[in-house]
C-alpha cells in the first residue's frame, strides 16, 4: 500500500510539474506570439521587447543564452525550431546560419534603414547596433603612457602578468581575424603565443569578467568592447569605478567595430510578425531605446551605438562618426573559424 501511494504521489507531482510548465511557457492565444532566441544582453533586449509588445500587441517569448549556443541549438532544431527571430551580439553566428540556409530574407524597407555595410551582404539579416574595441586599464597598476597603442604590442614581454584576456569571447575573434589579414598567418600565430604567455593567470571566460577584474585591480589591462565599461559604470556606480578606457591608434587591426544583428528563421510560422519585430529594432523608436541610457521604458543599459540613420548615442561616448577603425567588411570577418583555428594552435582555446 505504502509503495502504491508513493507512486501515486510521485505521478501527481510529475503531472503538476508538467502542468505548471505548460502554463508558464504558453502565452495567451488571443494575439500572435513569437519566440525570440536572444543572444544579445538582456539589458539591450528587455525594453526593446516590451516596447514592441506595447506597440503591436504581439507577444514575444524570450529565450536568452550565449549567441553561439543558440546558433548551435537552431542548427540542431532545424525545421522544427521553436524560434521565430534570432537576435545576436555579433555577425558570425548569423553568417553561419545564413550559410546553412536557415534564414528568411529581411524586408527591403528594414534593410534600407541601416548602412548596407553593416547588414548581411546577402540580405538575410539586418544590422541593429555596433560597438568598438577599446583598452580598459586600471591607472593604479599601469599608467596610460605604458599602454600599447597597437594591438601588436600586446605580445611585448613587458606586459607579462598584466594583460587580461577572454579568448573564448566572440569579441576577441574579429581582432585575431583582422590581425591575420594585416600580418599573415605565421606572424599571427607567434603573436598569439606571446599573448598567451603574457595573459597566463588572467585568462577569463568573458568580457564582463575582464572589465570587473581590471576595475578591482586583479589585472592591469585588457581589451574589451567599449560598452562593457559603460555598463559596469551604470551597474556599480561611478564611485566604484577605478578603471578607464582608451582607444588603439587609428586604423590599427585591434581597433574593430562589431555589429549586432537580427534575423527571421525560415522555419518560423509567423513570418509577418517576425519581420515586424526586425523593422521595430531599426525603427526610430527602437534605435532611440538603444541610444538612451536608463532603466525605464524607452531606455536601456545597452550602451551600443545605434546605426540606423538619424539616431545618435546619448550615452556620452565618443561619437560613432569619430571612430577610426581598421577597415574590414562583414564578409571579411566571416564566421570566425580562421581565428578560432589559430587560437587553438596557440593554446588559447
Amino acid at each position, binding site marked *: *500500500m*505504502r*509503495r*502504491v501511494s508513493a507512486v501515486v*504521489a*510521485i505521478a501527481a*507531482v*510529475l503531472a*503538476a*510539474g*508538467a502542468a*505548471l*510548465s*505548460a502554463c*508558464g*511557457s504558453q*502565452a495567451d492565444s488571443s494575439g500572435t506570439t513569437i519566440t525570440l532566441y536572444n543572444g544579445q*544582453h*538582456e539589458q539591450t533586449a528587455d525594453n526593446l521587447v516590451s516596447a514592441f509588445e506595447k506597440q503591436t500587441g504581439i507577444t514575444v*517569448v*524570450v*529565450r*536568452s*543564452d*550565449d549567441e*553561439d*549556443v543558440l*546558433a548551435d*541549438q537552431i542548427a*540542431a*532544431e*532545424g525545421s*522544427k525550431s*521553436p524560434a521565430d527571430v534570432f537576435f545576436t551580439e555579433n555577425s558570425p553566428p548569423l553568417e*553561419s546560419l545564413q550559410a546553412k540556409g536557415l534564414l528568411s530574407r529581411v524586408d527591403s524597407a528594414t534593410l534600407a534603414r541601416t548602412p548596407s555595410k553593416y547588414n548581411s551582404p546577402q540580405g538575410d539579416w539586418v544590422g541593429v547596433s555596433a560597438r568598438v574595441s577599446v583598452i580598459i586599464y586600471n591607472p593604479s597598476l599601469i599608467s596610460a603612457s605604458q599602454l600599447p597603442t597597437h594591438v601588436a604590442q600586446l605580445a611585448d614581454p613587458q606586459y607579462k602578468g598584466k594583460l587580461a584576456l577572454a*579568448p*573564448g569571447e*566572440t569579441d576577441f575573434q574579429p581582432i585575431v581575424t583582422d590581425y591575420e589579414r594585416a600580418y599573415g598567418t605565421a606572424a599571427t600565430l607567434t603573436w598569439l603565443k606571446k599573448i598567451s604567455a603574457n595573459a597566463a593567470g*588572467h*585568462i*577569463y*571566460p*568573458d568580457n*564582463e*569578467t575582464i572589465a*570587473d*577584474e581590471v576595475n*578591482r*585591480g*586583479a589585472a592591469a589591462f585588457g581589451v574589451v568592447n567599449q560598452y562593457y565599461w559603460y*555598463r559596469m559604470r551604470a*551597474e*556599480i556606480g561611478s564611485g566604484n569605478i577605478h578603471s578607464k578606457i582608451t582607444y588603439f591608434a587609428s586604423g590599427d587591426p585591434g581597433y574593430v567595430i562589431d555589429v549586432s544583428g537580427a534575423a527571421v528563421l525560415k522555419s518560423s510560422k509567423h513570418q509577418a510578425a517576425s519581420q515586424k519585430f526586425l523593422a521595430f529594432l531599426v525603427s526610430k523608436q527602437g534605435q532611440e531605446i538603444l541610444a538612451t541610457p536608463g532603466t525605464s521604458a524607452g531606455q536601456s543599459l545597452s550602451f551600443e551605438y545605434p546605426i540606423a540613420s538619424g539616431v545618435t548615442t546619448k550615452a556620452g561616448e565618443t561619437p560613432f562618426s569619430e571612430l577610426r577603425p581598421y577597415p574590414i567588411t562583414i564578409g571579411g570577418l566571416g*564566421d570566425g*573559424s580562421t581565428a*578560432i583555428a589559430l587560437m587553438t*594552435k*596557440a*593554446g588559447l*582555446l
Partner: protein
Amino acid sequence: MNALQAPAAPPALKPVRARRAARPVGLLAVSTLIAALLAVPLVFLLIESHAAGWHTVAAQIVRPLTGTLLWNTVRLTVVVTVLCAFLGTVTAWLVERTDLPGRRFFAVLLVVPLAIPDFVVSFGWSSLFVWVQGFQGAVLVMTLAVYPLVYLPVAASLRAADPGQEEVSRSLGVGRLRTFVRITLGQARGAILGGCLLVVLVLLAEYGAFEMLGYQTFTTEIFTNLQLPTEVPTSCALALVLVAISLVVLAGEARWRGGGRIARSGPMAPRAMPPLRLGRAATAASLAGVCLLIALAVGLPTGASIYWIVEGGVPSVSNSVSVSMLSAAWHTAAYGVCAGALDTLLALPLAVLAIRHSGAVRQFLERSTYLVLAMPGVVIALALTYFTEQYLGSAGYQTAPLLVICYTIMFFPLALVGVKAAIARAPASLDEVARSLGQSRLAAFSRVTLRLAAPGLAAAFCLVFLEVVTELTATLILVPTGVQTLATQFWQYQSSLSYAQAAPFALVMIALATVPSVVLGRFFNVSAKAQGSAT
C-alpha cells in the same frame, strides 16, 4: 562494502553469496533499463565523436591547451580532495567522538555548506576579495563548498562503528594515536573514500564557481567551446577526456577500498562510545577551528549576499523581490521535488540489487551509474536534445518533463548513495521473515524494507533536491522558454555585475536548500539510533 552501509549490515547467518542462486530476473531487468537511461549521455558522446571522425576527435584532444587543462584539473582535484578528507574527517571525529561543547549544534551547521551553491560561495569570496581567483581561489572556494560530502558519511560511520575494537586495541597496549589511525580511521576508511569519490566527481563537473574565479578546467573549456561556432565535436572530445579521468578515479577507488568487511565484536545493539575528553586547550583550539570553518563556509557567502543587498539599497531589492523571484522559486522547487522523487524511486531497484545480491553484473550496473556525476550538466542536456530531436521529433524539448529527466540522470548517483545506505539499514532477513509469514514479495518489501528505509529515502530525496536547486548549465539549455530558475536568474544578474539584484536570489536559494540539508544532517545523525530500533 561502503562504510555507509557496512556497519549497519546485520551479521549474516550465511555468506551473502549463497543468495546468488535466487537472483531475481525482474530486478536485474529493471536495473539494466535504468542503467541504460543513465548511459544516454555517454552514448551521445560516442555517436557525436563517431560522426565527427575519431581522427578529428584525437586532434581536438591532442592540442596545446589540453596539457594546461589536465594539469589544472588534476592539481585542483588532488589538493581539494585531500583538504576535504582532512576537514571532513577531523570535524566528524570532533563531533562524534569528543566532548566538544555544542557538538549537536555543530553537527547541523557543518552540513549547511551543502545548501550553498558552489557558485554562490565563489561569488561571496571573489566579490569581496581580489586575491580569491585562479588556483588559490578555486582551492579555497571548493574546499569550503564540498567538504560536507566527506563529513556526512564519515560522521555516520564513526557514530555507528563498534567501540569494542578500539577498546580491544587499547587493552592490548596499542597507543592512542596508533589505535586512532589503525582502528578508528580503518573503520571509517570506506566512508572517507566514498566521500572523496563524490568530491572528485563534483570537482570534475563544476562549472559556475570556476568560471567566476577565472580558473580553466576541462568543464569550463567544454562550455567555452560550446560558445564558439560549430565546436560541438571539440566539447565532446573534452568530455570524453573527463569520462576517462572519472573511469580512472572510479577504478582506483574500488581498488583502494578493497574487499575487506568490517566485523563487529559483539551483538548488534550499538553502544554509545564514551566521548573522548578534550583538555581545556584542545577544546578551545577545536572550538575556534570549527567556528572558523563555519564562518568561512557559511558566514562569509551569506554575509556577502546581505552586504550587496544593503549596498544596493531598497530599490534594487524591491526590483528583484517581485513576481520574477516568486516564479523562479516556485519553478525551482517544483523541479527539485519531481527529480528528487523520481531519482529516489529509480534508485530503489539498483540499491536493492547492490545491497542484497552480489556478482559482477550488479557491480557493473551500479558503478556505471556513477559516470554521469563527472559529466558536466551541459553535456547531459545536449545528449537529451540530440535524442529528442533524432527520435521524438523534438517532442518534449524545452519542456518541464525533459528538464526533470535531465536532472534525474545527472543526480541519480547521489540518490543511489542515500538509498543504498537506507536499504542497508533494513536487513533482508526481516523481509524473509515477513514472507515466511505469508506476505507476498512486494508486500513484504513495502511493509518492512521501505518502512525501515524511509528516513534514508528522505535523505536521498533531499540530496537530489539540493543539487537541482543549484544546477545551472543544463538548466540554461533545457528550461522551458520564458521560465527562470533561481540559479539562472542569479547567474544572469551576477554576470552583468548587478550584484545587488543577484544577491537576493542567492539568499533564497540558500533558504530553499537549507531545509533539506538540515534533514540530511539529522538523518546521518540519528542513523545509529535508528539502527538500534531496527534490529
